[in-house]
């Protein structure tokens, strides 16, 4: 099922790379592969940013 907020967008993409991406993500379609790539990239970025904030504060694990 598609996520709640999905829009139609026209993009110019390399078809070979798109096929590679679909295989890499084992996705059911090219569109699904692009959605997964976006979701994962943003999620990992958000997770790393949160970790960086913890590191910068320097309070983790200290009494």
């Amino acid at each position, binding site marked *: 099922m598609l996520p709640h907020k999905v829009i139609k967008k026209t993009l110019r993409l390399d078809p070979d790379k798109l096929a590679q991406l679909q295989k*890499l993500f084992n996705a059911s379609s090219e569109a699904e592969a692009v959605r997964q790539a976006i*979701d*994962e*990239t943003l*999620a*990992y970025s*958000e*997770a*790393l940013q*949160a*970790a960086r*904030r*913890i*590191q910068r*504060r*320097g*309070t*983790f*694990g*200290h*009494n």
Partner: protein
Amino acid sequence: MVAPQLFDSSVLIPWLRTRQYDTLVTAAFDTRRFLLSTVVWMELYAGTRSRTDKQDLDRMVTALASVKRVVTPAPEDFYTAGQMVASYARHHGQIVLREHANDLLIALGAWRAAAELVTVNRQDMERWQRLLRRAGRRVTLRVMEA
């Protein structure tokens, strides 16, 4: 396909405190290989000393969970962990389950996810790796220097 990496607390706690092992952990994020075990997650929460650290850990976990990068023990993993401790105790003398349960559950999580387990805890993890291999559960270890 490159194997995902599951980091245990012996790596992630120093990483969050002092950025030790930063190159390796950051690379796992950049390549989307990073997996988080719920057992490690519990241990990280135990290390939070401020509301803001806790909130950022929440964000980190929520983001990873949203793309299914959090692994959790299956019910039978608890059975296997108990059997591993019993097996070790029969051959080498009594050990305390609660001191080893987390390591075993983390190792089993790595096995389930076919992930490389990254640890500093060489002695314990190599022991459990050997015993798990005998039980048909092969875990790949990457041991970092403390």
